[in-house]
């Protein structure tokens, strides 16, 4: 299904009507759609933000901007919760819902507490739909640096937000899992998809192409997930998104001691930046990662800044 069809299916009637006026190709280029009550609808596309006019055209003039009202968000939330918000209590507590296809919807509003714990969110005031882009082949340039004979190197992808690290990780997984040539016929990949962003699972089935030898643990916390995969699915490679917590290190060590290769991503803009973070510093000092890939936004999402050998810390390109 096209991205446009999926997203439109989860909007309230007024938002659906206005966004359905956008063409399919315009929709594919959108990175984020932001709804804020009593403020204009904003679309982020190619790193720039646009308003949308009543006739469905992009505009930079705020006077022509389409304004969101409270009911729009209430209706949209109902649709996103498939008319069953009671089934999404856990997701709302975490502040986001994942739509089929791996599009993540962030929520803000009035938080309700109970006994010191976050109970739920009432009166949703804003939403951010992050459109997940499946770019088949975006890892082509990186793959040769990662392959080591019949196996791969432990790899860390370092990227600032919105530079396409999850997209890159997904394509890496797909290529490693499918195999590339007769010399590299593909490895069993286990994915711990804590936020359903990599595989975009819907009812446990990956909606994005993550390769033929890939097993996905959907919505599972990373630490438990990595250990579960290690025990149960005997993977050759384990892939996770956004590491950085102290517990993550122990799970990573378990994976590496188990003889399994690891691919992870992390937020950051340079090696120095990463070395400032206590948890990641340790990983780099121990020279756990053999390859580090740095991304930036110079030529749009997914631009490669550098590929670094983790043992010598020297650039490979």
């Amino acid at each position: 299904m096209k991205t446009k069809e999926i997203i439109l299916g989860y909007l309230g009637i007024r938002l659906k009507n206005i966004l359905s006026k956008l063409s399919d190709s315009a929709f594919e280029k959108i990175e984020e759609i932001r709804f804020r009550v009593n403020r204009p609808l904003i679309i982020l596309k190619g790193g720039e933000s646009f308003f949308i006019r009543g006739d469905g055209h992009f505009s930079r003039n705020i006077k022509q901007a389409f304004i969101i009202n409270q009911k729009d968000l209430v209706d949209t939330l109902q649709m996103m919760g498939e008319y069953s918000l009671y089934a999404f209590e856990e997701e709302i507590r975490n502040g986001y819902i994942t739509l089929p296809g791996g599009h993540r919807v962030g929520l803000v509003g009035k938080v309700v507490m109970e006994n010191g714990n976050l109970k739920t969110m009432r009166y949703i005031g804003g939403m951010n739909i992050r459109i997940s882009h499946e770019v088949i082949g975006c890892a082509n340039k990186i793959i040769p640096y990662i392959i080591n004979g019949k196996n791969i190197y432990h790899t860390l992808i370092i990227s600032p937000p919105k530079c396409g690290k999850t997209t890159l990780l997904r394509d890496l997984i797909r290529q490693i899992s499918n195999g590339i040539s007769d010399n590299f016929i593909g490895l069993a990949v286990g994915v711990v998809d804590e936020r359903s962003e990599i595989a975009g699972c819907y009812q446990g089935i990956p909606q994005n192409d993550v390769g033929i030898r890939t097993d996905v643990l959907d919505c599972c916390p990373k630490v438990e997930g990595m250990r579960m995969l290690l025990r149960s699915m005997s993977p050759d490679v384990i892939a996770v998104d956004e590491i950085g917590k102290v517990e993550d290190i122990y799970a990573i060590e378990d994976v590496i001691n188990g003889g399994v290769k690891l691919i992870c991503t992390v937020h950051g803009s340079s090696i120095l930046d990463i070395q400032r973070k206590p948890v990641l510093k340790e990983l780099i000092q121990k020279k756990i990662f053999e390859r580090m890939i740095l991304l930036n936004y110079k030529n749009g999402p997914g631009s490669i800044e550098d590929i670094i050998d983790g043992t010598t810390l020297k650039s490979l390109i």
Partner: protein
Amino acid sequence: MIKLIGALLIIGGSTFIGFLIDKLERYRMNDLKNLQRALIFLKGEIDYMITPLPVAMEQVGNRIGDNIGQIFIYAGKQMMKKTGYTVTEIWKESVNSHIDNTYLSKEDKNILLSLGNALGYLDKEMQKNNIDLSILYLKEEIKRLDMHHQKNGRLYRSLGILGGLLIVILLY
């Protein structure tokens, strides 16, 4: 001879009317009981199974069957189409277009409609309370109807026959 046939027709007709009134009440009772069962199922689906509403609606409808089940099946199907309408709107449309196939009264209809106002967007506890409220109404109504029926069911039937006889005797 013609007089005799006429007399028989009058008695037959009035007996039929008496039985019909009795039957209509019994049909309504049957519908109310089905509705009550449906809501109890729905509550279970939401409370224990945490089934999403569209699926729950369809399952409940299929299990109940009959004309009452149709209301739930239609609403579930409409929700799955992701048209952008709210639960309240979809439920209202479904109730309005299917209620004529049932024997439910206007009051029953209003209760059904008010159920739709709170479906879907509240948390589990509130959903449960809301459905419980409707179930409570149905329970009371069934109880009331049952007592009424025990008292008046035979009355309607015998009144039909006796009324017919009375007219015949008066006219004869």
